[in-house]
């Protein structure tokens, strides 16, 4: 059995306006409880996810990042979630190269009807990151600074 630590991670979750954000609304309406460690950002589509956003979240102190979007084949904008998938796969590799555990970034599909599933994904994510421990990436380096207009330099991963 795994020991549960007292560490409370902070997770940033990116949601799609059409599916996963509504799934979060649905979880609320149905009063499905999940850990408060997650904080959500609404985008119009998971395809809008700029890899910089993820790096920014880690740099500002997030211990984990979740990307959520419509199930493959169900994108509101036809196929943009596939682009999110591609970026996610690349990002995982990039993170490992930067010394961050790949498990700190997680991709989950959730349709507007899947409040329960989204809550479960969030709960599992929080537990995973809890086991990994704090990231503390922002503490040990002034070298990582992502400013509002420095996105261009980090675009290479797209």
């Amino acid at each position, binding site marked *: 059995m795994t020991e549960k630590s007292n560490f409370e991670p*902070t997770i*940033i979750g990116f949601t799609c306006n*059409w*599916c996963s*954000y*509504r799934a*979060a*609304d649905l*979880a*609320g*309406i149905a*009063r*499905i*409880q*999940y*850990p*408060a460690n997650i*904080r*959500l*950002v*609404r*985008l*119009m*589509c998971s*395809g*809008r*996810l*700029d*890899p*910089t*956003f993820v790096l*920014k*979240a880690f740099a*500002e*102190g*997030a211990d984990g990042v979740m990307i959520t979007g*419509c199930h493959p*084949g*169900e994108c*509101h*904008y*036809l*196929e*943009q979630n596939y*682009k999110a998938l591609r*970026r996610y796969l690349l990002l995982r590799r990039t993170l490992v190269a930067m010394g961050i555990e790949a498990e700190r970034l997680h991709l989950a599909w959730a*349709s*507007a*009807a*899947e409040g329960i599933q989204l*809550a479960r994904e969030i709960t599992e994510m929080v537990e995973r990151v809890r086991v990994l421990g704090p990231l503390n990436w922002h503490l040990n380096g002034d070298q990582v600074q*992502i400013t*509002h*207009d420095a*996105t*261009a330099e980090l*675009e*290479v991963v*797209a």
Partner: protein
Amino acid sequence: MNTPKERIGVYICHCGTNISAVVDVEDVAQWAANKLEHKGVVIARDHKFMCSSLGQELVENDIKELGLTRVVVAACSPHLHEKTFRTACERAGLNPYLCELVSIREQVSWVHSDKVVATQKSKAIVSSGVERLIYHEALEQLSVPINPATLVVGGGIAGIQATLELADAGSPVYLVEREPSIGGHMAQFDKTFPTLDCSACILTPKMVDVGIHPNITLLTWAEVEQVNGYVGNFDVTVRQKARKVITDLCTGCGICIEKCPKNVLDDIYEVGMNYRKAVYTPFPQAVPNYPVMDLDNCIYFDTGKCKACEKFCPTNAIDFEQEDEMLKFQVGNIILATGFDLFDARKMSNYGYGRLENVFNSLEFERMCNASGPTEGEIVLRDGVTTPKAVGIIHCVGSRDKSHNAYCSSICCMQSLKFAHLVEERTGAHVYNFYIDIRTPGKGYDEFYNRIVEEGTHFVRGKVAEVTNAARQPDEKKKLIIQVEDTLIGKQRRIPVDMVILSAGLEPRHDAKEVAKLFGISCSADGWYIEKHPKLDPVATMTDGVYIAGCVQGPKDIPASIAQGAAAAARVQGKIQQGEMLMEPIRASIIEEQCSGCRICNDLCPYNAILYHDATMTSEINAALCQGCGTCIAACPAGAVIGTSYSNEQVLAQIEGLLMDVSV
């Protein structure tokens, strides 16, 4: 520290106690006033109901009196009240897009219970709203013209009603139906509850109206193949399947049908209870009345010989060379009314459907009751001659059952009561209704239930365990035995009957998922199409310009289907009358000077909204085609693509806000 540019107002909603029971809203407001002052927060208040007129006035007054330039409201989901607060800002003279609604109800108070943690998370969310808002721009809504034509998919009663409403209002309508005739399930029924009026008598006049209406283009034996575009301007491609009958020449005389030598079991209209020909109209009152040819069963297409239909056709309307045709047209709005499938009762093997011959499903029984059905309205056993002396009707078959469909199919109780009446009336047989709960919430419905009780129908409260032909007692021999716990007695009973009718539930169409994908809308976990809001917007969908009506949205009876058909038509007609539509200004654009012409974005756009100009060697976004997904913004290596409402600056600032240290 720099003096902040903006003057920001922050408003925290109690939502009665929905939020304040878990979040210390006063603390959040006070914290925002103190800790976010350097960001420009000049006032932070909490209020019992921000969405009330008092709450809105609070915002309006502060804008006027304190000169607010930005407003953050922390309350429910923006999908509910974003518009409310934007409108309030607009009334006070502030551009509506300078208002941000952040959710601390759905995302905090409803899903967490620890007050300290929930309050901290609320602070982080408020801070993210403030950070983001600083980068908001004043925006104007976009306007798109609305094509006055409408596509209605599905010619059942909901689709027929929607079509007629629109056509009568003077708008052109394309009605596309997969089968040879419109009419849908209602055309299969004999009587309708609770009034017991004849289904055909009330339906056929409407069908005829559709057939002759000058504003309606009726496309039966046709399926939608492709849909492109967006609200106001959809490009639709419909496959008109080859009828092998030239409709301009056909008079509907029916000689071809009479002469066709091939009998085919009719699985659709007659639900496998009767035969049709290989060239056929599904039923005599079909609209349109031109036959279609069933190529899988036509003798000529199988052996190369026959052509009886062609030989006898008096107007030379048979054309064996006819091919499928692709029809393309444009519409401004779409109404989906594709209906339901019946639950396949063979999946519940304990009821014996498909194995025990005198077990019927509800549609089979409807056909049997119908005067134009296989028995001409006589209620008999599968042998076609014997009148049953005892009949059992089982409710909730495949419904309210987590192994099949967890939902209540809503129509089965009333339908079963109707069946009980018809059996009683036409055969005098003993009728047993087996139910879990009798659900009759409708005008005149419970009165109908009482009427059936008075007629002497036996009601047994219990979900039937099994239907068997294995007799234990002499009086069970050659009968079907219904084994059930009579839960009002608490004892197991075995009731021998001659006939069992399964009130099978309603299911989404077997291809509902693919059709949803085609029109860019989504299905619930059960497979029904999701409405925009379950209470406030039951016929719109999340996709602008696509509406739903009838059972495609969930099980419902005829009155409710008709109401939804009319409601969807009213929504569409409203849009048509406006002539143009205002849309959220969430769009991408390209800064020409920064574009290097790499063309990475060009292929990413699913709407082909990005054009490359050879002359300038840069790309440009067509704002009318752009739908605002933002994929190109995320992908541009030069940062040349920018987007309104979800700019990099806004999102990055929001992340900073969310991760702000709120513990101090």
